[in-house]
């Protein structure tokens, strides 16, 4: 490799870094600052197909399959036939189940819309006029893993890009200092649920474990715990100086430029992220409104991230499968619902106060629902045939109920909504025709909804 510097004219590192900053580095940085000022996305390979109703998505994911009959889909017939297995319906699922198990929770009409909500969800009842409650969801697999893959990626096998990767691919990010697709998952990493698969890897979700409120611990590897910021800057300056010299010697190359930029972004992200991720920066009253559990802090963090331009925040309620109540479901729900209810409702109110709800679509639900019949006496089995999800904001109609399950809550029977329909609708709100958001891989076009999905126009405001 030829050396352009004659012996004797020994430049110091700082001189060299300084002189190089006048070249490529200055352009890159100015470009990025410009984007931050104007909020223009840095790259949108697919671009929206039409004017989007929502710019952001927050998915509140209740892993395990929450019980719709105890929360949002009242079924008085369960009491009438308590303990029985009426001949008229086939209530079989994968495991041995008993008779119909009534919900002990009282439902009341709430809000102007008068939607019936269980006593387990007093706070969500208070914002029910913002909610579009879909009581006729169904999915195609009764097992957690495949059903979870399906709702995350449109396919039961773990090989397709996740919803978030598609959104990031379609919209790019609004803030170069943060990833466009953030996953908050207390105590759990399941990397393949937020994978980019064959989409370019920059679209994969960036995962943070939000069990601990301390951002230093939440973002363990974001921050270099061997070197402080100054020492890291020294190291980065040397890397970039070597990279620029290398670039001069081999000729321009978009990959090399991209990598030089990515190193800068990574460095800056360490510091911006530490600020953003610190919910301690919120006023005490706001923190109080959400609560102080991992899920509650996750909801608050979701709002902070959305506010700063993150496209998609995917928040898991907790580690493992917390809503998988095969036993003692009533006791479990009494314990688990309060913080979920309080924080989810706080998120909706908070987004609304800040004028962000219109442009932020909030989606709540799990991979399936639960059976109206009991399992092991006081639990409920998996139910892929009918369950409830809700959406709020982002251009969907509030205060409505869509679809219904049969009289026991077992099968969706009216206005059935598949997971593909849900995906098609989410993409629609973000400005995409789900049939046109495709990616050519291995010689054919793939899409999130495969060959399925219908946009639920009747849900849209």
């Amino acid at each position: 490799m030829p050396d352009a510097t004659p012996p004797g004219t020994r430049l110091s590192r700082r001189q060299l870094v300084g002189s190089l900053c006048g070249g490529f580095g200055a352009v890159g940085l100015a470009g990025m600052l410009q984007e931050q000022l104007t909020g223009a996305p840095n790259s949108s390979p697919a671009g929206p197909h039409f004017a989007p109703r929502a710019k952001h998505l927050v998915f509140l994911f209740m892993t395990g399959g929450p019980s719709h009959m105890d929360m949002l889909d009242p079924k008085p017939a369960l009491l009438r036939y308590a303990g029985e297995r009426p001949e008229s319906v086939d209530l079989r699922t994968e495991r041995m189940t008993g008779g119909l198990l009534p919900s002990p929770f009282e439902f009341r009409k709430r809000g102007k819309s008068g939607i019936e909500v269980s006593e387990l969800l007093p706070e969500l009842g208070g914002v029910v006029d913002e909610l579009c409650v879909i009581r006729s969801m169904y999915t195609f697999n009764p097992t957690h893993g495949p059903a979870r893959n399906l709702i995350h990626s449109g396919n039961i096998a773990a090989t397709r890009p996740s919803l978030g990767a598609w959104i990031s691919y379609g919209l790019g990010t609004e803030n170069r200092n943060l990833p466009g697709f953030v996953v908050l998952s207390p105590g759990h990493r399941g990397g393949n649920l937020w994978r980019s698969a064959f989409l370019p890897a920059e679209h994969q979700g960036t995962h943070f474990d939000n069990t601990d409120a301390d951002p230093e611990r939440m973002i363990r590897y974001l921050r270099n715990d061997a070197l402080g910021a100054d020492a890291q800057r020294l190291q980065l300056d040397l890397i970039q100086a070597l990279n620029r010299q290398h670039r001069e010697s081999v000729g321009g190359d978009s990959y090399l430029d991209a990598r030089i930029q990515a190193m800068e972004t990574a460095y800056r992200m360490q510091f911006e992220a530490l600020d953003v991720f610190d919910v301690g920066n919120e006023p005490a009253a706001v923190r109080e409104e959400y609560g102080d559990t991992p899920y509650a802090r996750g909801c608050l963090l979701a709002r902070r991230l959305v506010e700063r331009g993150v496209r998609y925040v995917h928040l898991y309620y907790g580690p493992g499968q917390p809503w998988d109540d095969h036993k003692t479901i009533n006791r479990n729900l009494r314990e688990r619902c309060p913080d979920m209810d309080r924080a989810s409702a706080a998120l909706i109110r908070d987004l609304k106060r800040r004028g962000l709800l219109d442009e932020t679509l909030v989606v709540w639900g799990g991979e399936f629902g639960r059976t109206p019949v009991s399992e092991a006496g006081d639990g409920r089995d998996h139910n892929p045939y009918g369950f409830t999800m809700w959406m709020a904001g982002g251009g969907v109609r509030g205060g409505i109920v869509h679809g219904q399950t049969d009289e026991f809550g077992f099968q969706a029977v009216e206005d059935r909504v598949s997971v593909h329909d849900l995906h098609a609708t989410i993409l629609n709100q973000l400005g995409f025709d789900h049939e046109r958001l495709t990616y050519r891989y291995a010689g054919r076009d793939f899409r999130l909804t495969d060959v399925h999905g219908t946009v639920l126009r009747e849900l849209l405001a």
Partner: protein
Amino acid sequence: MNLRGAGLGVAFTDARSVHVAWTDWSRCVVAWGSLLGPVGWLAAAPAQSDLFSETVQPTLKQNCLGCHGEANTFANLDLRTREGAIRGGDRGPAIVSGNPAASLLISAIDHRGDLKMPPGGAEKRLAPEVREAFRAWVEAGASYTRADATDATPNWEFAEEDLWAFRPVGNPAPPIEGVDAAGVRTPVDSFVLARLAEEGIEPAPRADKVTLIRRVTYDLTGLPPTPEEVADFLNDRSSGAYKSLVERLLDSPRYGERWARHWLDVTRYADTAGYSNDFEWPNAWRYRDYVIRSFNGDKPYDRFVLEQIAGDELFPQEPEALIATGFLRTGPWEHTGMAVAAVTRQLFMDDVTHHVGQTFLAMTLGCARCHDHKFDPIPIKDYYRMQAVFAGTAFARRPLAFLPDEQTDGLEEGRAPFQARLAKLQSRMDHIHEAARQRLAAVKGAEVAKAASSGVLQGYTDKREQAELLKLLRKRVTMHKLSLLRFEALAMAVSNGLVPEWDVVASRNSYLKPEDYRQAKTHILVGGDIQSPAEEVAPGALEAVERYSGLAPPDMPDGMEGRRSALAKWIADPRNPLTARVMVNRIWQHHFGRGLAANANNFGKMGGKPSHPELLDWLATFFVQQGWSVKAVHRVILYSEVYQRSGRHPDSSLLDRADPDNAYLARFSPRRLTAEELRDSILAVSGELSDMTGGPGTYPQINSDVAMQPRHAMGTLRPLYEAEPTRRRRNRRSIYSFQQRSLLDPMVEAFNGANPDLTCERREASTVPTQAFALLNSEQSREVALIMAERLAAEVPGNPVDAAFRLAYSRPPTHSEKSLAEDFLGDMTAHHVQSPVPPRESPADVVHDITSELTGERFAFVQPAYTGPYEHNPHPSEATPKTRALADLALTLFNSNEFIYVY
């Protein structure tokens, strides 16, 4: 649930439960829209006369005629004409004109009776508006008004340019016209130069020697050259210097390790079976080592094909050939007590059919699983004819003594920690069993208690947490027992029909029986759905190959025995137009970053067309003439000028305009290292790369956060990830890493490692900030950087900067680089003097919480971070500030573009 597959000739009893493992991974997205039928534009009801052309006809075309009219007439029903529909099929008339209520077609699309169409369950039911339109149309007389509906020829036309891969392979002479003979080293140059001349592009000059030795060393071994190797090459001024370099590398055992990785990407290799339990395939590693040996020994490719598809049938006495059949089985597969046997069996059948098609023929066979291929001349029938070849193929874990070439040195050392852990697990389990047994005896008597299984005893534990713990221990015992099998002389192979003593399916009582294999029949499954069996098919291969190339179809035997041999021989036939082209294209792709045909796994219409079709054919012919020698193809490529060109073109603006993707190869395209190359290179330049080869998968150090995370194994927690205790065992080449489907090394993942669930034709090379975190901030790279620093401090204390650059970049630093690096070392040493590091923390026990499926309560399980002695890497607290600064420099070099990109 007593469900048996349609392919096995037994009826279903519960339609719903078939959804248990219904997989639709291979359904093709149709570029022009949805198959679900027209919906949106029906908002305003069209006039009666428009019903047919606007709704009925397109819906029939999209949803019905594929099976009832175009390529097939299942159930003898042809819906292309009104006459056909009224005549009906096996179940009688489909349409009674003017009477929708009596029309079977209407009840079928409404899902009112037992016949529900289109197949695929409620999800595929036509939209209400569409069904309403059909009803109104039948009511009005079911008129087929449009002439094209009676057109009997399927809309399945192929342009000649899309059929290139099926045409016989030509043997074109290397072009002479317009080719400057001075630039021709091998015939490859002639073809490329002729094309460049046509395009009016001058080729770039030859690369310098440092670039060349890095390029070809990475290419053939996946590792950087050592400074000594670089010096030798630079000092060899003979004309044969480059040739001897290539020959040395082709002879190196590292060559097979590198090229086997490419093959294992294509064959979706992993050491585990994926899905919920992700149980181990304990002897899969012998297949991985077989692939390495095959490349190192330059096994003729036709033989390589025969062995992997039918080694057990064709060469039953040759152990290598039995190990080779592991290829058929390395895909994801799982059968559990909750699954339906026919569905599980179909998982394997679809996996093997698709992957045989992708691997050897570069055909996306999976697209023809549900319907005739949308783009290529592969009818659904061909898919199931290929599938029928495997109808009798059963999993077999066959006893097979280790070969002299196989690595058996480390087996005892590897086995010991598993045995120790198993003993601990078993003793904890015995303890709980004993207490439960006493409790059970008190209730049901000693006889019952004595015979009780662990599952029964689980109901008699003294506390409910004990039951959950028992479940966890039982799963871990199963996993450890499986893991111990990897040290045994067993081969992961197949047999024709079930051989009970080789049986490997855990939940046998609910899986196939020997008679199921003997009687196995293969039906076309409409929509890929085992609920919708249509006509039975005989084993066979792709009819398009015969139609367009003239190669006769495989000569299939009557019974189960020999079907795979027939298919394998047909694939390995020199006249098969696909096989040799596919392989030489893969080889080309790995040398140049992209294939002559851009999609190495798709030679159909949707794959990239060859940029140099004549060169591809010439290479394919040459390959066969050279006895299918892969190394012969390497030589003819590597010796060419094309391969030795500089990455920098003198007229880059012309090139950016005329050939931005560098398809005509005027220059060499640089590439980023793959994840495995990056890890191996860092270990290599640090002097830490272990020389151990072969044997069961090893556990490298991975991100500790990921290693300690709780991971589910169907209802319970799987054991923590434990890195190998010794540096020599854990710092081996990445190809020897244990490939767990549910846990990819996050470092490998960040740098676009292959997803082993599906075939990977080519690695992506993305650039994201998270890669910087992985490489710059992770403890693994920092620790290896410290190892390199200690090596530099010990070996070249006088001039570590110079040595570091020579190791990492194969060249000394420039003056300015050297001064930058020395300034940096000074600054960082000063920094470290001020910032001492606390000693290494001993790893704490890990507590994992899950919600118990048995009790609905939180269940906490405590496990120690390490279960045995552990040889740590050096720690910064044990190093001087100067060495720590050197480690910072090493890490800087690992993160720089010159290290990460090959030119």
